[in-house]
């Protein structure tokens, strides 16, 4: 199995397409960093315009932690596309190239073959997130320094102390990895049904965009189905940045407001991953390879 995963990773990382995602993340974050470094003040003003009448905020709002949060908020919506670019190509790309039939005449069961491919996809996803973490967190910590993190939620604002933030990012990236693995497994499932990668990539993105819109719309009719959409749970990483308060309304350092909500979201995502992968194996085992 390890050999198979190695081979799949070898294939992934020998293809130019793979590096598009890494380059895209680097470029996007680079642009955000450049912009904020150059004109961060105006951005903060813009950001604070809605709450300035309620709260006076003093201090270095635009520090590395804040920039990382901004980056994640903006980027994590688009990373699925980069994941889909590779995940949705995993099987369809081979079918298109004509290598799938050759692969499958080798003495490896289809289940193992598919699992190895999926593992490699997950490895790619994780590497992409590690790269995102390096660029968005560590590089920003270097460029902008660290300080307290001031966040605006829709109902309240949160202030996290400098020494109470890093661990939240570690967990947030972990959660993001889970969310992106869900995207990867969906793309992976779709990649079984086509003989070119465009279809599955578009299908994956369409589902995500469609579900995200449903998740965002605050229309009562849709509220009932929201908990069942995996996209609703994909932003669960933000929950790590909500702190609990005691009776005196004092934030408890090191606490999370809704750990149960994170857990629930994580479970929903894991169930989706298992569901998608199981479905993929089930389909693939019976599939006639005509490519």
């Amino acid at each position, binding site marked *: 199995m390890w050999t198979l995963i190695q081979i799949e990773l070898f294939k992934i990382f020998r293809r130019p397409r793979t590096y598009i995602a890494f380059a895209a993340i680097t470029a996007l974050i680079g642009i955000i960093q450049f912009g904020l470094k150059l004109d961060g003040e105006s951005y903060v003003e813009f950001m604070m315009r809605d709450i300035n009448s309620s709260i006076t905020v003093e201090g270095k709002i635009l520090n590395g932690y804040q920039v990382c949060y901004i980056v994640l908020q903006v980027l994590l919506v688009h990373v699925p596309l980069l994941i889909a670019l590779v995940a949705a190509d995993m099987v369809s790309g081979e079918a298109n190239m004509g290598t799938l039939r050759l692969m499958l005449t080798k003495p490896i069961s289809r289940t193992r073959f598919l699992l190895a491919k999926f593992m490699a996809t997950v490895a790619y996803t994780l590497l992409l997130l590690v790269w995102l973490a390096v660029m968005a967190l560590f590089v920003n910590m270097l460029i902008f320094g660290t300080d307290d993190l001031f966040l605006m939620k829709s109902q309240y604002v949160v202030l996290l102390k400098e020494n109470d933030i890093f661990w939240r990012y570690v967990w947030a990236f972990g959660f993001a990895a889970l969310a992106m693995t869900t995207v990867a497994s969906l793309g992976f499932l779709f990649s079984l049904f086509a003989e070119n990668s465009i279809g599955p990539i578009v299908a994956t993105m369409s589902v995500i965009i469609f579900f995200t819109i449903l998740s*965002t719309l605050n229309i009562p009719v849709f509220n009932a189905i929201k908990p069942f959409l995996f996209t*609703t749970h994909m932003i669960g990483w933000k929950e790590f940045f909500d702190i609990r308060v005691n009776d005196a309304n004092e934030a408890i350092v090191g606490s999370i407001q809704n750990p149960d909500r994170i857990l629930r979201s994580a479970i929903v995502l894991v169930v989706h991953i298992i569901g998608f992968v199981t479905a993929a194996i089930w389909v693939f085992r019976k599939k006639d390879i005509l490519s």
Partner: protein
Amino acid sequence: MFRLIKSIFFMLICSIAVSVQAQDMTGLINKVKAKLDQVNDYEADGRMKTDVAFIKAPVGKVKVYYKKPNKFRLKKDGGISLLPRGGVSVNMNSIIATTDFIALAAGEANVGGTKTKVVKLLPANENNDIVLTTLYIDEANLLVRKAVTTTKENGTYEIEMSYGQFSNYGLPDKVVFSFNTKDYKLPKGITLEFDDTEKELTEAEKIRNKKGRVEISYANYVVNKGIPDSVFK
């Protein structure tokens, strides 16, 4: 005609009586002011606790700086500080610093076990944001125990002070501000959240309680050692 003269005379008496009483209170205020006036500047460490429904912040360490006549700065050490809008000027000195006022006696009251004189301060200047300040003054120690200020723009807020080591300078160990908070709400489109509405209701209920409090406990006062103006910029 006589009746007219009589009534004018009565009014005159009354006004004198009022002004005599007012004069009395101005004296008390001036005494308190004189006491505070000993302080040219100070800095102190403080622990700030913000108890506002829509703010979730941990207890923070702050540093406060004051310089006559009305420079005041609250700084958080290297971090970010959040203060609810409400024009909370966090020290007594600046409240009393106004010279142009009318002080009226309004009886006595008990604040935290101390007997106090109640004084109402009316700013003479119509343009002042402060409409009325009610001071609860501990006459024996010349300390302001409580102040309730009504403003045009920022509603009413209350400051309660307790004193300790630095009562000689009129500097409190602990100050508690209570005030009405303004509404806070951001559209979800901006915060990019899509959590379920059910949860929000309970949060919203919390927010309906619009009384906010900021509590600062002071320690390590450094008085009259000089503070450069740059601190207040």
